[in-house]
């Protein structure tokens, strides 16, 4: 019975996440436009774009290899699995035992690598540049991410996302300063990763739709990850009933709106991140991650 319930919740979660990802992108664009004083597109616009693209058949570059058609699939599959693993409105979903933080980092890297591979396949200047930039930025982002995972692992004694969120929900991830620093570091990593695009210029039709959906899922994974790890208010516990789920759903919506608005405001205030500044941001993320781990270790020694 418990397993059936967990599977049901998991299915609902996957459907919700797939449906919500383009809407979140729409919300992001709309908020950004409003803050810049423009009207902004409708929230449903990304969904319309996806539907339009999915109806077309793709045009390939002349020297595209079979890998070029596989890459969008691989990228989407990795992001869909990652999105299925990060809890949205409730804990204790069927895939919860799979939701390891390192696995999530690995899935993000997998999707990134698949896309960069396809960008190199066309043999264009822009694709090659974008691929090498992605790989080079990852060399700075991954150490920061690993340090944050170390911090969370030290705080909670596990790297499983579900268990960590459960502990945070009960206020057991102490000291909070370390968690806050880790969260800030994650935000920086997410911000730095969000600009490394420019690899999709060769895609079209259904392939482009898949990649855009994967990109939307990636943003949603970051929002969900940061939101659930550090602000799990209202999230339903394992074995909760429909009422708790409703509360969790509402809390998830509020959390998403707050995070999207916060990030949009941050972007509006700082302007678009210049490419040259991204390593700097990642360096700061790494230092914050190190500081968070230090805080945990020092407080453990002092206790």
């Amino acid at each position: 019975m418990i397993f059936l319930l967990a599977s049901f919740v998991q299915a609902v979660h996957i459907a919700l996440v797939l449906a919500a990802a383009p809407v979140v992108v729409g919300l992001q664009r709309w908020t950004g436009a409003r803050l810049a004083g423009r009207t902004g597109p409708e929230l449903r616009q990304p969904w319309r774009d996806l539907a339009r693209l999915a109806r077309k058949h793709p045009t390939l570059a002349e020297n595209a290899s079979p890998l070029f058609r596989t890459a969008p699939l691989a990228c989407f599959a990795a992001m869909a699995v990652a999105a299925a693993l990060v809890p949205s409105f409730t804990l204790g979903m069927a895939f919860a035992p799979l939701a390891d933080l390192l696995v999530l980092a690995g899935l993000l890297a997998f999707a990134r690598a698949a896309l960069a591979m396809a960008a190199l396949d066309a043999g264009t200047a822009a694709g090659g540049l974008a691929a090498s930039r992605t790989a080079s930025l990852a060399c700075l982002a991954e150490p920061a991410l690993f340090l944050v995972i170390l911090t969370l692992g030290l705080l909670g004694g596990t790297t499983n996302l579900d268990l960590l969120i459960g502990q945070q929900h009960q206020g057991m991830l102490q000291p909070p300063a370390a968690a806050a620093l880790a969260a800030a570091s994650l935000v920086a990593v997410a911000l730095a990763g969000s600009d490394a695009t420019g690899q999709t210029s060769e895609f079209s039709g259904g392939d482009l739709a898949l990649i855009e959906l994967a990109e939307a899922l990636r943003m949603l994974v970051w929002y969900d990850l940061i939101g659930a790890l550090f602000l799990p208010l209202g999230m339903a516990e394992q074995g909760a009933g429909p009422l708790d789920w409703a509360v969790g759903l509402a809390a998830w919506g509020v959390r998403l709106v707050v995070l999207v608005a916060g990030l949009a405001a941050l972007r509006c205030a700082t302007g678009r991140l210049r490419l040259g500044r991204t390593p700097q941001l990642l360096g700061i993320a790494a230092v914050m991650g190190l500081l968070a781990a230090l805080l945990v270790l020092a407080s453990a020694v002092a206790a």
Partner: protein
Amino acid sequence: MNDPILTLLTAIIAALVGLGALGVVWPPLARQSAGYTTAGLAGLAALLAMLALLLDDSPATLALPLGLPGAAFRLVLDPVAAFFAVLTFAAGAATSASAAASDGRPAATDDPAAALAALPVCLAGLGLAVLAADGLARGTGFAMAGGAIWAMGAADRTSAAQLGVTLLAAASVIVAYGAPTTMVLLAALLGPGALAGLVPLHAWRAPAHRATAPAAALLSGAVVPAAIYTMLRMLFDPTGAAPPGWWSLPLLALGATSVVAGGLAATRRAELDTALAAGTVRQTGLIAIGLGIALTARATDLPGVAAMALGAVLLLAALQAVCGTLLPLVAGAIRQGAGTRRLDRLGGLVHRMPITTACLLAGLFGIAALPPGAGFAAIWLLFQALLALPHAGSLPFQLLLCALTAVLGLAAALASASLLRLVGVVCLGRPRTPRAAAADEPTRRARRPLLALATTVTLLGVFVGLLLRLLADAPIRALTGTGLGPRASLLGLAPGAESPGYAALPLASLLLLAAGLVLWLRRLRGVPSHTVSGPAWEGGFAAPPAWLPFGNPATQSAGAGFAPVLAWCAWHPLRRTALVRGLALLCRTALPRRSAPLRHRAALPRLPAPAVALILVAALLALCAWAGTT
């Protein structure tokens, strides 16, 4: 049951030596059939060793009627030796099969006949080194293997360096046998450590990999596991008591430096072979980190953590045996098929050599830390072992562990960068030369060993838990007294009993399921599967003129910029040393960059205020914590 297996293995080693001697006496014999015989014998030896591993019987010993007077060679077959014998012989079998299959093809650089005569001797030497119970036999084995590999390649200065390092390893193994303990550590780092490619004696690997493909495959696929095994024996065996805790420090430091140096070099080198050699250095560094963690855990009496770290070490060794053999062989096939090893002369091979491309992709994916590859499982195990360790040791040591975590992250990113760079530049995109555009796939027989190795590495990634449970549990129990137990199962790996971990098999199934669903939906909605083809969108630039049939070569990435540039160490006199590179990368990661025009002038970096504040806070915190401990 181990006694007859050991006798049979000894007989196989003797037969291999005899085969090599026959090939030297009568060169026509050193042809294809001899190569396949070698492959068959080595494959049989690997199967026998695997049988011994699965039966998990009491260790067997055997005294040979060879050696110095009063000190006959002794052999031993216990689970650890059996595990590494499987790796060494399997790697040797694949190399022999590949060398035999490529015999008779016109090749400018390779000399298959020399390889086929020396191969059995090399495998016999490595087998002796792995099964030896005393230093003399092991040293003799390494010397035999080194000499045979030297005879395989062109006898120039670079292979002399390889021979020198092998003989150094042989000598240090002989000297360290029965020596005082600190001497053993030094000998392990300078002898087998150097042979495996550990910094600071790693520079010989890149030129040695430019020798023939079988020699390079043996050097990274068969020699590295044997060297790792020797290190394991030297560091874990000598007294039975736990070695002092500080022993792990040089291992961790050298391992981390190797990871950074090798990883960065793999994203820089201009040739396929040397970039792969740098990848070997990176993997060896990871193995050294695993050994260091296991030593620390053993010194502080954390057998579970030691078991996890050793699981990572054994997994990485197995990965090195498979990918370390596969990748140089693929590089050799590309060199033969496309006529060059330079990245800026290759490109677009996926159209002419699809199977070779798939093998290169599988091998590099295996060592890249991407799920569901085996390399990810190894990094995951190392991370979990590191995570469980801070409860042991003082704060400075814990700081070191934090730094190691960052190094693991860097290793993962550098491995992915190397995958992207090598596959992307060599196999994808447009061909850069007419020769690359006319590349040839190897023959069907030569492709078989490559495909077998590529399948093995893929299965190793998906069934990592099952394979570790079956094959690595007994060796780990023999080394630490505690096996992996419930930490490895069919589903995957876990940091402890009853706790969720990395479920490799379900994750791989989910990925396949998601991709399959998309394909099914596409078919269901009747989206036409045919595609239209057109010129690539060059960002608005015009098509290249007729005298550039392969497009403008300058507009296609030739593999630069796949890792961050270390600007401030570019002019430094010590810039070539790996330590400086590692430090520079750490600094570069941690500190915001200075403004561009001043970069090469200023003697000391001027740090922006936030970085200074952050560093001060970190230092203060560390100081407080230090005061708290004392």
